[in-house]
């Protein structure tokens, strides 16, 4: 049966696939429900889950994208789990939902079958108190070690604004799993040279050779989804969603608004779709250039670092001109975009793209022809194809490991149906392959920007939205610079959101880093870890810290400017 599917499933249409799945899952699932046209939910008993997942995983290349837990006691006094599985060739997301009684929230673990469930199950155990029978890894994922065990912050009875304890008290604590008789221990992070954001890798080494590694992250997790579910209305969330990540924020905002639009059946004007793709591509370029600079810096090649960031500066300026801000464009809103691309800005954008392409070509040649750079990255941190599939990695990491997946092609959203581009895929799976994927994608994005500016349709940029329907659900997917960024949204009453699950690409790409590290040297650890372009902000969903308002003083701009200049002088 397996071979049969492996041969056929690539070129099935969506309808054929759906009825095949119906046939396969007959008897296992109890009910079926189609919220949106690319999202199908099956209901099943919790005992059946492993069988269902196994059946679905037998289809050639399916990904377990995310396991979204939910506290539905308000409706049916149950907790629920939704296993969202992606069929990339048919633009389809299958959700398997099971309800767990509140008094014993236990579900069977599928981590042994699908590695991608590893972090998801641990997160649900931490935040919803759902136990997974057969999950060997007993460590906490999200919450700190000293967090009380019976408190689960994402249950609805936990208030969004009252932490049971101060996050800052107590030292960061970690109880390692591996016994260290024959190995030495190296702490890599949270305060390490190459860690822009805090993460702790505990490396077990022989000499400089890494024989094992353990991960402890989520130092900055503050439950941003809880805030959104708690007090914000659906149209304020795009702005907080954009602040999930400083680099790929716009993809989060877009994914969220797409989810809302698809669950509210809103179709947005063409110009808005094109502008969204434009901003997404701009963001992709600046993210990739930033990554290239960081990688060069990690490998001790500061010239490449400076030059790629110099090139990046142009695109930042372009973004500033188009949206009014270098990052966090604040363009997205449910129903469209907020700013139009007017007047001479199009020509300015075209000129900028030309300039960037010229400079980037030179940078590209410089990096590719640098023998030491190639030696440092070739054959390092190899992630074989099978492991890539099992971990469900996305984005450049997957494309470097020979998996031809790209949300822009597979689940076409904003304007990507009308645009033509090709997806670079390399099969080596080492750091060099991933790097090359990113290097090529910059060229593709430049082409895309030119196409978009070329055929930018006329018309309005926003559709009027009053209310959103209650108790609808949808997934919004966007190809972030780091891969598939999926938002599962369930709407609640009074224009609020009942459940919002953000699965950023790094959330899928960081777990396999452990496998990629083993067998390589301490010198390679930074570049291997950086090769997945870890965006911990996305992974851990930060939130802006609450600051109490000060008392009344009014200060003139000149004073403020002088003050800030003086400050930055003393700092710099």
């Amino acid at each position, binding site marked *: 049966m397996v071979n049969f599917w492996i041969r056929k499933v690539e070129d099935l249409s969506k309808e054929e696939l759906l009825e095949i799945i119906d046939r396969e899952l007959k008897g296992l699932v109890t009910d079926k429900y189609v919220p949106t046209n690319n999202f199908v939910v099956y209901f099943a008993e919790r005992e059946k889950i492993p069988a269902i997942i196994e059946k679905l995983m037998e289809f050639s290349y399916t990904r377990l994208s995310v396991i979204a837990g939910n506290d539905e006691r308000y409706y049916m006094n149950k907790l629920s789990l939704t296993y969202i599985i992606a069929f990339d060739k048919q633009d389809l997301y299958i959700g398997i939902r099971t309800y767990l009684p509140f008094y014993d929230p236990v579900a069977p673990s599928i981590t042994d079958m699908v590695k991608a469930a590893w972090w998801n199950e641990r997160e649900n155990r931490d935040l919803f108190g759902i136990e997974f029978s057969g999950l060997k890894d007993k460590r906490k994922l999200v919450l700190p070690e000293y967090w009380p065990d019976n408190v689960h912050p994402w249950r609805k009875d936990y208030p969004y604004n009252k932490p049971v304890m101060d996050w800052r008290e107590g*030292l*960061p*604590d*970690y109880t390692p799993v591996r016994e*260290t008789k024959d190995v*030495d*221990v*190296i*702490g*890599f*992070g*949270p*305060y*390490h040279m190459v860690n822009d954001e*805090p993460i*702790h890798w*505990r490396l077990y*080494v*022989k*000499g*400089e*050779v890494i024989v094992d590694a353990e991960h*402890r992250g989520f130092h900055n997790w503050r439950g941003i989804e809880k805030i959104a579910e708690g007090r914000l209305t659906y149209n304020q969330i795009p702005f907080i969603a954009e602040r999930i990540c400083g680099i790929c924020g716009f993809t989060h905002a877009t994914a969220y608004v797409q989810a809302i639009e698809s669950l509210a059946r809103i179709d947005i004007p063409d110009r808005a779709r094109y502008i969204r793709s434009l901003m997404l591509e701009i963001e992709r370029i600046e993210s990739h250039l930033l990554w290239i600079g960081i990688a060069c810096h990690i490998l001790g090649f500061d010239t490449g670092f400076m030059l790629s960031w110099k090139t990046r500066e142009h695109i930042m300026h372009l973004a500033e001109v188009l949206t009014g801000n270098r990052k966090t464009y604040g363009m997205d809103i449910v129903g469209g975009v907020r700013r139009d691309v007017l007047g001479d800005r199009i020509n300015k954008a075209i000129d900028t793209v030309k300039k960037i392409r010229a400079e980037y070509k030179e940078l590209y040649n410089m990096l590719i022809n640098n023998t030491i750079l190639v030696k440092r990255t070739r054959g390092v941190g190899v992630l074989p194809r099978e492991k890539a599939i099992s971990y469900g990695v996305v984005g450049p990491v997957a494309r470097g490991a020979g998996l031809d997946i790209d949300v822009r092609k597979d689940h076409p959203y904003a304007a990507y149906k009308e645009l033509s581009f090709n997806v670079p895929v390399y099969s080596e799976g080492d750091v060099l392959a991933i790097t090359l994927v990113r290097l090529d994608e910059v060229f593709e994005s430049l082409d895309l920007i030119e196409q978009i500016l070329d055929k930018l349709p006329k018309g309005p940029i926003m559709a009027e939205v009053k209310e959103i329907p209650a108790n609808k659900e949808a997934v919004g997917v966007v190809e972030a610079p780091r891969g598939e960024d999926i938002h599962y949204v369930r709407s609640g009453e009074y224009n609020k959101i009942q459940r919002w699950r953000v699965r950023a690409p790094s959330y899928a790409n960081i777990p396999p880093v452990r496998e990629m590290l083993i067998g390589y040297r301490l010198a390679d650890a930074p570049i291997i870890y950086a090769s997945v372009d870890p965006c911990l902000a996305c992974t851990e969903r930060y939130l802006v810290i609450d600051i109490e308002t000060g008392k009344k003083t009014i200060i003139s701009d000149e004073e403020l400017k002088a003050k800030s200049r003086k400050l930055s002088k003393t700092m710099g």
Partner: protein
Amino acid sequence: MVSLGETLFYTVIVCYGLSMILPLLFIRNYKYGVRTGLVFTALASIMQIVLAVYVFLTNTAIVINDLISIDVFASYFLALVGLAGLATSIYGLEYMDLYVEIGGGWLYSIVFAAFLLSMTLLPMMKDLLLFVFFWEVMTLTSIVLIGWEYREGFVVRATKQYMFTMLLLNSIPLIMGTCILWNIYGTTNLGLLASYDVVKNPLGLLVVLLFYIAFTSKAGLFPLHYWLPDAHPAAPSNVSSLLSGVMIKMGVMGIIVILYKYLGLPTILSYLLLVQALLSIFWGSIKAVMEDHAKRLLAYSSISQIGYITAPIALAFIASRTDPLLASIMLGAGLSYMFIHSLFKTLLFLTSGCFLYVSGKIMLDEIRGMAWTSKTLVLSIIIAGFSLAGIPPLAGFMAKIMVYGSILLGKNIVHGLVVAILMSMAPLTLLYSIKYVSSTTSLSSKIELGKSIGTSMKIGMIIPALALIVLSIVSLNKFFTNLSSILLGIRVETIIPSLTDFFYLVINPYIFYGSLIVFAALIIAVIVSYSDYKNGKDIISKGVWTTGYIIPVNKHLIRPSYYYFEINKALSPLTGFFHEIYECLVWNIPSRIVRNGIARRIAEYFGRVNDWVWRKLCGFAEKYSRYEEYKLDEYAGSAIVSIIRLIGNIARMAVVSPIALFTIALFFLSIIMLLIILFLGGWP
């Protein structure tokens, strides 16, 4: 009329004799048995240092008779053995308490003294037969000392291996060669033999080959080095420091004196010696780098160091026909390296003994940071280890640089290549020495050990350390060059100044400015930093930086055995291959021969005899013990009883049977030896 020199000589002999006889009074008491012996060996060592100094100052050979005469060259070895012997004897006073349960302290001191005495007398011998005799004594004593811990499996194995090797490669060739020479020339007097042209005679050439094999195997040069890394660690530490510090140099001494000076060494053999030297440098270095056992590491390092010693000597032999001046300078370099190496290698083995003493552990990972039990230990480890690494300003650096410089004096391309190879292998020395030093003096784990090392051990380590410091300031190059020039029979001082501008160092006889600079820096740094350390209130010390998480310090490091993990992985196939070959050649085959051979039967026979004697004597003793006037006899009798019992016990163990044989042989040999010396000396 006995001259002062002769008196000193006899004092040395008598002291050694006392240290062999007096312990018999303390058969029942292990500690007294050991300590009396060692005290007297220490006295003897001091005496022989005095004798060496006397001979060097008067610069005239003391001729005891036509068989024994102490020339300047012999006095060099007297001083070498004396320093090492003094350090090890004083060290052993408390260190030997480790081996109480083995017992036989009196036997230990007899053997120890015999070992030292044989090595003291070897360079003085002017007669080949006596030379071979004392050589055998040295071998036998060393066998017993190596096998001292006869209950340990690896010790037994090492002892047997060593014994087979010495039988096959030392005793048999030496005795055969001596007999052949006797047959040809009718004499074994070395002076007479030197007058004949031995090498021209094909049989003589054979003899030279046999001697060459014997001496290189004793020196532990490359192809015949296999016994060394097993044998040296097996012995008690003060003995293994003697083995590494002194005994292997006896091989070099044999090559220089017997082969080169008297019998004459063919040039081809000199080249072979050179090649062997380079190979042993390489092999010893990489094996030491890969080693995790402290004493084995040091043993391998002495293999490579013996290469550094013999390389200039071999070149000196090659050059001696054409350019005796150059040859003498090279030989001087070799001799100075030998002297300094004996000092720091003795010291290193003594330090490794301290870890056995305080904790019973010897693997580098386990003794990490234990040196901090006493400051003396740390200091001596640093001094000795950095001398081994050849780091300025220490004496090892002086020796190394003198070797390089002296070889560079030769304009031949071979010299250049040899120096280049030696220099490019020097950092390997740094690799393994820093592995030993840094792992033992690591700050990683503060262990609370019950024992602390004794005062006598500290004194025993301070002596060579002080000698090293002195030698690193005052360079004895001129002395060694004179020495070798006397050996080669030429005068150096007249010709040297013409070389001044080529290479400064060899010529500058007394002090070396390069080291002076480092010493100046050291003194300034010590002054400044000590005041800083004392009143430094702004020194913040909050432990190491673990990048944010709490990690136990004893795990949070790279352990010594993983320092050169990649090197180990890369070279293990090669070393494994050689290990297999040696395993087959020198262990499996001989042990099979012995197992089914005669040795076992002899051992059993001895066991039976011993039982009989023992029963009889015990009965005798018990019968007469109740009478007061027989007490003395009882004691005497019981002494003999326990001697025989020990012999029997050793003999009973089939595994150690050959050692038993040699122990018994030794007992008689040592007595014979004493008589010989005293009678040869013309005493009444």
